């Protein structure tokens, strides 16, 4: 005799430790299997785009810090690049290198958090996260030296960076560079061959090539599906054309590949930092002459960078006043979430949490 079953709605979040912020998944369940899902967000909506329309171009930088607060440096850079493109400002050599060093440290930092969070979602509660945080703190120490802040740095400015790094920065950075490979290997040994982790992530939540492109996924999510697309290589901004690095890609596009791509990207970021430390001019200007009150000419610009989460784009329309006429952020986290529904349908609730974790979102950027 067939058993009659009925679907029911399960609300995961908005306040739940596996939703990485205030995010709600309204899941239609058939027993333990997900039939349909609707992501609900907006709990952290602060109207940053609207706020930016009333602020000066330098005044917006603290707002960009609060987009993806796990990668403030990247947001700073993307904003400054957009303003520089509007104004036609050149950035001094030393500042370019400082920017690249900061942004790549930030990428390592954000990937630490992403990997720690995936492991958390898999049920390895706390321990891997603490390992990740151990090194993340060391990078924070460096950021604190440079900018005075540990999370929202407000470090870059149109035309350069706000201040030069102190004397003790470079020795501390070199020391960290020497330590990082050991840490990466440690994680690799702990996690990449861990049987439980493999069972939870291999062949789970497969994102095909076609689906990834069609859903406008970007960053590690796109690359895990086997597409060699990295804006640092494809459309180099700042001075990325001077560095040698590879673009790691996955094969199947499952949760493990998304983890693995991030793991490999940290190695590549380290390579870039090593090269930048060798090439950086000892002394020099760190900020070109820019008017205190920026009034870009009438026009519009869309610039994009490869942030730790994916393609971070800033669209600015200027009407020659001190504040932008329209300010739009292309948020990789929000758009990567488009894939979520296709990924989780048919999987069990515990897998859905891991799949969600592997997309790696930051609610500050999703809701803006």
């Amino acid at each position, binding site marked *: 005799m067939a058993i009659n079953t009925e679907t029911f709605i399960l609300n995961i979040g908005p306040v739940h430790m596996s939703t990485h912020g205030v995010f709600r998944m309204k899941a239609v369940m058939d027993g333990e299997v997900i039939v349909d899902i609707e992501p609900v967000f907006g709990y952290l*909506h602060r109207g940053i785009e*609207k706020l930016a329309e009333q602020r000066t171009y330098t005044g917006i930088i603290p707002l960009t810090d609060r987009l993806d607060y796990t990668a403030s440096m990247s947001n700073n850079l993307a904003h400054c690049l957009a303003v520089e493109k509007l104004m036609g400002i050149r950035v001094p050599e030393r500042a370019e290198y400082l920017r690249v060093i900061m942004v790549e440290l930030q990428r390592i930092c954000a990937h630490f958090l992403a990997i720690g969070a995936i492991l958390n979602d898999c049920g390895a509660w706390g321990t891997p996260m603490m390992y990740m945080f151990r090194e993340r703190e060391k990078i924070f120490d460096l950021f604190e030296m440079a900018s005075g802040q540990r999370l929202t740095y407000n470090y870059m400015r149109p035309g350069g960076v706000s201040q030069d790094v102190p004397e003790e920065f470079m020795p501390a950075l070199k020391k960290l560079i020497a330590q990082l490979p050991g840490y990466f290997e440690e994680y690799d040994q702990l996690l990449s061959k861990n049987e439980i982790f493999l069972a939870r992530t291999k062949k789970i939540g497969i994102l095909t090539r076609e689906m990834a492109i069609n*859903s406008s996924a970007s960053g590690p999510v796109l690359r895990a599906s086997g597409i060699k697309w990295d804006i640092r290589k494809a*459309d180099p901004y700042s001075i990325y054309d001077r560095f040698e690095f590879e673009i790691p890609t996955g094969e199947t596009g499952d949760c493990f590949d998304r983890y693995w791509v991030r793991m490999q990207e940290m190695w590549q970021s380290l390579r870039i930092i090593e090269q930048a430390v060798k090439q950086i001019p000892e002394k020099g200007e760190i900020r070109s002459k820019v008017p205190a009150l920026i009034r870009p000419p009438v026009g519009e610009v869309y610039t994009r960078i490869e942030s730790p989460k994916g*393609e971070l*784009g800033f*669209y600015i329309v200027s009407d020659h006043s001190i504040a932008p006429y329209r300010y*739009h952020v292309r948020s990789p986290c929000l*758009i990567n979430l488009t894939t979520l529904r296709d990924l989780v349908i048919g999987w069990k609730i515990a897998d859905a949490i891991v799949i969600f974790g592997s997309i790696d979102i930051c609610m500050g950027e999703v809701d803006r």
Partner: protein
Amino acid sequence: MTVALSGIEVARQLGPRFPEAIIESSNQAIVVKKEQLTAVMDYLKNSPELSFSFLSDITATDYFDYFEITYQLTSFEHNHKLTVKTRCYDRNKPVVPSVTGLWQGANFMEREIFDLMGIEFSGHPNLKRIFLWEGFAGHPLRKDYL
């Protein structure tokens, strides 16, 4: 290095196929009539020499007289990009055809514009507010909203 295609060049290519579809073209962008937006986008996505398979971004700007919707397209295959725009003059009930049929990624982007700018996308599978709650009055990113 991604090549930014000149709007004028693309407009010349599209000309014979879509007469009267292109309102304006400059080095930065092409402006397409909204009635023919879907057909033009379909061609841009599927023609082998352009093949814009990746939709980077959609956004809208309020110019009081009209709304301008801006699409950023990227081609992985040829590594080039293009900005396509369309305009919508009706302020009370602006409607633009949805491109979700071509790119699934447009889903949340169009919902965001609907929520904050109040532009309706005809043919969107699930058009409702994304950040603000149902029942919120007005659309904050419009220039006449405070």
